């Protein structure tokens, strides 16, 4: 019972309390660049969850073999291998999404969340907790980018997943352009700080 509870904690901390985007503020480049539509965000989210979980597993299982001094290059090779696998799979099965994500697909390698979890968690935890940590953090990242993408796609084009939601709504194109991304994220971070503060104050 005790064990299940702690696994649940490893999983759930990434969803809200330590959300990688809103509270730790890591992995911003893909967050802002590919959130122009929900479809892109979903593709990126799945790719990141896959890489995060598998690299956490491998890094946690080799953690006692790798010498401390060269651990970063070793971790990067592990991460880069999984990113290449994801890249090839995406181009094989979902070529349209892969084309839209473009340069940001190989750039998952330098997504700070993945390296951050390897350094901060998988390096000194066993395999099973690392899996749950990766799943939770990946899911937290995906939910966050889906939220941002939803707001931006709706306000910027009036659509969700490419389908028009409300006929009479005239969209404001600035939201799918770069300034809209920065603005949305700034407001959302402030909003989530407010919610967390409210919870801590006991509202």
């Amino acid at each position, binding site marked *: 019972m005790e064990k299940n509870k702690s696994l649940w904690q490893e999983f759930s901390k990434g969803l809200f309390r330590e959300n990688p985007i809103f509270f730790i503020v890591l992995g911003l480049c893909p967050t*802002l*660049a590919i959130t122009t539509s929900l479809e892109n965000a979903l593709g990126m989210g799945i790719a990141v969850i896959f890489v995060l979980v598998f690299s956490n597993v491998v890094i946690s299982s080799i953690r006692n073999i790798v010498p401390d001094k060269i651990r970063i290059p070793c971790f990067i090779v592990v991460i880069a291998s999984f990113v290449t696998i994801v890249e090839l799979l995406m181009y094989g099965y979902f070529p349209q999404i892969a084309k839209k994500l473009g340069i940001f697909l190989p750039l998952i*390698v*330098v997504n700070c969340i993945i390296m951050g979890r390897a350094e901060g968690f998988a390096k000194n935890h066993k395999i099973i907790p690392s899996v749950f940590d990766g799943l939770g953090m990946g899911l937290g990242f995906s939910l966050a980018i889906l939220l941002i993408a939803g707001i931006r796609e709706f306000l910027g084009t009036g659509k969700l997943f490419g389908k028009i939601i409300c006929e009479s709504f005239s969209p404001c194109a600035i939201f799918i352009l*770069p300034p809209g991304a*920065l*603005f949305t994220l*700034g407001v959302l971070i402030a909003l989530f700080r407010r919610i967390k503060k409210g919870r801590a104050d006991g509202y």
Partner: protein
Amino acid sequence: MDIKSVLMIIISMVFINNFILSKFLGLCPFLGVSRNIKPALSMGMAVIFVITLSSIVTWLIFRFVLLPLNITYLRTIVFILVIATFVQFVEMVILKKSLSLYRALGIYLPLITTNCAVLGVTVLNINSFFTQNQPVAGSFFYSVIQGFFAGVGFTLALLIMSGIRERLMLNDTPSLFKDLPIAFMVASLLSLGFMGFAGFRF
């Protein structure tokens, strides 16, 4: 290779497709070291240095190792390894040769390995200056120019941002917006301004 396309690359990298404000590459250092002007300048110099040299190195590796062996799918792994070892190497050389330069750049160099702008520009070089796995005319030269000016654009955005944030510290911002959210707002306005450059044509 003609002067027009070189000019186009320069303008596009520094203003129109500024790496930070319109392509969103290298945001972590952009927010991390833009609180004061001086470290921002050092970081910018270190990025220009590393990005230019890694453009050269990765181009050579792609052209003379990956292409002949037909293993271009290993691109991402090879590039990130090259950049990581290269950054470490540069750090050691600077430490031996010039202590003052090391003090200025030193602490920022390890951070650059995980700066997406560096890996981004090398992947971009390969995507835009190789067609059907053959280098276009002047490909090497274009890649170096693109790398160097991507770094210049990065430094420009970082400097503007740090100048504004130094003043923001003194202002009374709402407590929820302190530090990061207000920085995002400022960056949003900056990027709106940079969108005005999109009309440049040659």
